[in-house]
């Protein structure tokens, strides 16, 4: 019984985390300019990261793997937002203005597809 509850809970967490990452991906493709795009991908990534790793930890149970998953989660929680911050800062320094309402920003022609 308790196993089933844990399994269901972990799958709910995994699916929630997966949809977070998916929403972030859609936002990264669809939103109008650079800052909104990294906003979308960074916030959802952090949330998805927590949810997915909690789900995986529930799957792993009390093993060494859980400890490792926790360490990886901590690492990603520290580095992800920092990377986003560094990215936004670098963009600001290189002259991309966080203006509102503009639909295109000239300096950012990434998304090679």
């Amino acid at each position, binding site marked *: 019984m308790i196993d089933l509850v844990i399994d269901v809970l972990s799958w709910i967490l995994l699916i929630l985390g997966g949809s977070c990452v998916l929403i972030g991906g859609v936002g990264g493709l669809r939103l109008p300019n650079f800052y909104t795009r990294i906003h979308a991908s960074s916030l959802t990534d952090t949330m998805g990261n927590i949810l997915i790793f909690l789900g995986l930890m529930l799957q792993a149970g009390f093993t060494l793997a859980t400890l490792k998953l926790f360490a990886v989660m901590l*690492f990603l929680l*520290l*580095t992800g937002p*920092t990377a986003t*911050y*560094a990215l936004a*800062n670098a963009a600001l320094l290189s002259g991309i203005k966080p203006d509102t309402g503009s639909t295109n920003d000239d300096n950012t*022609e*990434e998304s*090679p*597809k």
Partner: protein
Amino acid sequence: MIFIFAVFLLSLLVITAIAIVRTNNLFSAVMLTSIFSLLMAANFFILDAADVALTEAAIGAGVTTVIFLCALALTADRAKPNKERRKVAYGAVGILASLMIYATFDKPPLGDPDAPVHQHVAPWYIEKTPEYMDFPNIVTAVLSSFRGYDTLGEVFVVFAACIGVLFILGVPVPGNAKPAPMQQKKGLHHHLIPQVVGRLIIPFIVLFGLYTQFHGEYGPGGGFQAGAIIATGIILYALLEGESKALQAVPRRVLMGMVIGGALLFGGVGVICMLMGGNFLDYSVLAADPVWGRQLGIIIIEAGVGMTVCGALLSIFHAFASRERAS
């Protein structure tokens, strides 16, 4: 399930490769190369080659990207469009690709136990590793003992590559190297958050590198991976705090000493084996108990490999980074 994932990753690889070729922006090309390496690492991991995946992730996605970016800082960030030779290039690539695809038809299916590669020496390695070395990671056993000559050659290749890059890019003249006030500004001095997080993380990166180094007999890892991971940690330090700070922490002399000392250590172990009555790189004579002798030899030569790789990557990085500063 794993098959679908593998196909997904491989198609992403193809898409990334086409994007690398098509883009004119060298900066996005560098980033795409990094993504390519990361996808490749995931692919290696699916194929159960954790050691190679670790190397690919650390060197391909980590260190090379930074070195490419340093090189990019020295030149323009856009490629000149070159249309004339396009047709010849497309033709050559098309012919080569179809030849390679044709060659894969003869390849045995993936994981086929009857494939020639699984019939040659691999069963012998698998059978003899527990008896000869008494540790579980056969990759390390093959790399450092059964195929010790090859690894010695690889270490000398890394050594030679490092010397070559230093010859071409040059070490700065000592008189030129005094830090001017402008150079102090290098590094992200106004970026407090990355610095704080970096200070928190760098010790753990180096610690993980050491773990990879000394746990290589029991899990995925070894000298190549450890050297690359430690180099990444120090390069991160250089990016955050400025290159001169990193050179203060690990001076050029030390780096050169690591490159040369590592290669010497590897070769020296081989010579000591000969002096103690065995063949070159036959570690079993190093101790009274042959199994312990082999383990000892492997630990020493892995340390040599790690030193050389770490020193070489850092020297190459500094060669590019200081060049940027000079011009």
